[in-house]
């Protein structure tokens, strides 16, 4: 069997909402194909939904960055080998049992019940932010005034981070996630957020008993200070950047699909499914995630050898017609969309997904209730896309309204 080999990962999107057409083409030929990595390693590109699920769910793959081959020198340049270690507390990059021990310390804080209890409070934050946006007149950048502030306010309050100190993490988060940052720039940005988190942990230890997740985590006495500050960093970053981009590009998507937006307005009860479908359709991870096999494993008739690095293309897997029959390339808010892999799969599946769902449910609902005639304020082709970022979306979304 001749295997399909890509010399580099196609990243150019022909349409703001679709994965690169070249990758869709690859999926149509082979849901598992070969991909050349920057160091010459011949790894794998996985574009099928079932195959992505199988790999992410398998204990035979690791997310330890030390094990991964470097994807592409277009991003981050050369990575010094000694700087790729997973730091203590960064459970996303760890395997069991370390991962299990750390994640378990947080899981109780993100249960469906706890997140549902936050609904009214989140609704107040959304209302306040929408009132603020209206106070600006008849036009605004939706990202700056709504999509970024809402999840930032929510995660800051949950973690016990002062929102007025957001300048200490928002810009550096962008630098960490920028594909244009060199490895050193990204690491320097992370070091500054780590300093901020270390100060936060020290402050909370000096003033115990706070009503927030980090105080609760410290009260257990389980994590070391270093683990606690990196866990807090992970929650802070994952808690604002991801949902912000779903709210931003999700709004852009709905404005560009007026028939679907009409369904959401006419049948508000469709919102839970609409959130799943927007997640499926947009995925927002630009490409990835990456895993490396820790032992030989056969997936779909392909022998993935120990040490092989695998890039899974979630935006393409979420359009796989084997999983989503009909027309998976179309946005359809009534489609059964659950089972998408936009939150990942396996033991690293998004810890904050139930919070994200509620933020999106309330955010989209109230945005279009309060601004029924919301419209794009620039030509759609001029909306600046985050093709330079690991988390995809829009950099800004100029919108206007008349009443």
């Amino acid at each position: 069997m001749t295997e399909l080999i890509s010399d580099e990962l196609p990243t150019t999107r022909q349409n703001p909402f679709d994965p690169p057409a070249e990758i869709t083409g690859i999926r149509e030929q082979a849901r598992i194909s070969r991909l050349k990595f920057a160091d010459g390693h011949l790894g794998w590109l996985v574009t099928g939904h079932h195959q992505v699920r199988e790999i992410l769910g398998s204990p035979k793959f690791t997310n330890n960055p030390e094990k991964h081959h470097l994807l592409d020198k277009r991003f981050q340049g050369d990575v010094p080998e000694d700087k790729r270690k997973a730091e203590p507390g960064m459970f996303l990059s760890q395997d069991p049992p370390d991962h299990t021990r750390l994640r378990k310390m947080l899981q109780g804080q993100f249960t469906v019940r706890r997140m549902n209890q936050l609904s009214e409070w989140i609704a107040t934050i959304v209302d306040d932010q929408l009132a603020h946006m209206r106070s600006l007149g008849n036009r605004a950048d939706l990202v700056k005034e709504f999509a970024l502030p809402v999840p930032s306010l929510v995660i800051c309050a949950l973690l016990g981070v002062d929102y007025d100190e957001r300048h200490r993490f928002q810009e550096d988060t962008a630098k960490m996630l920028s594909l244009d940052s060199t490895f050193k720039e990204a690491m320097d940005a992370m070091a500054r957020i780590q300093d901020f988190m270390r100060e936060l942990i020290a402050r909370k230890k000096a003033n115990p008993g706070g009503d927030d997740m980090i105080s609760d985590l410290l009260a257990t006495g389980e994590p070391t200070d270093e683990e606690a500050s990196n866990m807090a960093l992970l929650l802070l970053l994952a808690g604002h950047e991801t949902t912000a981009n779903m709210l931003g590009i999700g709004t852009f998507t709905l404005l560009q699909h007026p028939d679907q937006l009409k369904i959401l307005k006419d049948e508000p009860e469709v919102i839970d499914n609409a959130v799943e479908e927007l997640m499926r359709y947009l995925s927002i991870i630009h490409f990835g995630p990456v895993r490396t096999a820790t032992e030989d494993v056969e997936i779909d008739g392909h022998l993935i050898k120990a040490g092989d690095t695998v890039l899974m293309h979630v935006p393409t897997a979420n359009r796989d017609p084997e999983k989503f029959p009909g027309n998976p390339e179309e946005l359809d808010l009534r489609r059964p969309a659950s089972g998408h892999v936009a939150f990942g799969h396996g033991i690293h599946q998004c810890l904050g997904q139930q919070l994200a769902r509620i933020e999106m449910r309330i955010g989209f609902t109230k945005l279009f209730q309060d601004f029924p005639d919301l419209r794009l304020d620039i030509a759609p082709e001029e909306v600046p896309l985050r093709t330079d970022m690991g988390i995809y979306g829009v950099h800004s979304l100029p919108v206007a309204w008349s009443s």
Partner: protein
Amino acid sequence: MRISVDQSKCCGSGMCVLTDPDLFDQNEDDGTVVLLVEHPDATHEATAKEAAGLCPASAITIS
């Protein structure tokens, strides 16, 4: 139909509770799955299967 859960595999994603809160709950301390109904009636068989299929950690088994 019989549902069984494996707390040691569970990663607390909450997908089971989201899918059918009549069958599943989560432990307040570590978010792991709590099985509320071992033998679901016919009206919950489909959601039991769906929850097992959605579980990211394969912690739910249907027999």
